[in-house]
């Protein structure tokens, strides 16, 4: 979409006794000569 692709998963917890964190790791290759940037 417009130069960017978003990947979304819904993290569903089954309990509230502790803080929990959901993580989504996406592996990707950049086009030759380009490096990903994390700042918008």
């Amino acid at each position: 979409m417009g130069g960017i692709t978003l990947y979304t998963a819904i993290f569903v917890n089954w309990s509230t006794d502790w803080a929990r964190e959901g993580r989504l790791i996406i592996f990707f290759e950049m086009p030759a000569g380009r490096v990903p940037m994390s700042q918008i």
Partner: protein
Amino acid sequence: MKKFVLVLLGLMTLGLCASGSPRQVTIIRACLVRDAPTNCENMWAVIARVRLPKQPVATFAARPWCGSKFGGIDWGRTVADAILAEADRDTLENLAMDVSGALQKRLVPQIARHIRGDAASFIENNFSKLTPKAWSLSSPGYDLALCAPVIAAVPADATVTGYRLRAWDENRGEMDCTAGSIECAPGP
């Protein structure tokens, strides 16, 4: 007096180091990920995170669900529209980021301001909006504290080679998520 000044300077230095610590890494070389994929040399990994805080009352839901308000949100579309409203194509060309983590940590107010309605409320309330008094399994809306979107962005012309889901528990640490499964069991 001299000793006092030295102690004070030491404490200030510690404070500066703490406040100046780098943010949690979100983009790394894929080979640095635990159990890295094969042929990872030319790959990158973006690690998106979202945290559900501990609630004032511990409740267990055998079959958790997210509630109709949460379920009615198209998180991908909502966040994509917000990003596109703020950033131009050149900016997005190489953008790979932990969008959910940035939203939850209030690092991207320029994007968050374009998100409205229920999605904005969930983010604003850190996916946890019930007071201790109201918190019970029978309370309508208890489920609001059980769900959150984890969102990663990669450039549209990047080649995605795979993904992983992980869960981390404040008490037990990294949880056992079987490859290919969408469920993560409690740790040891």
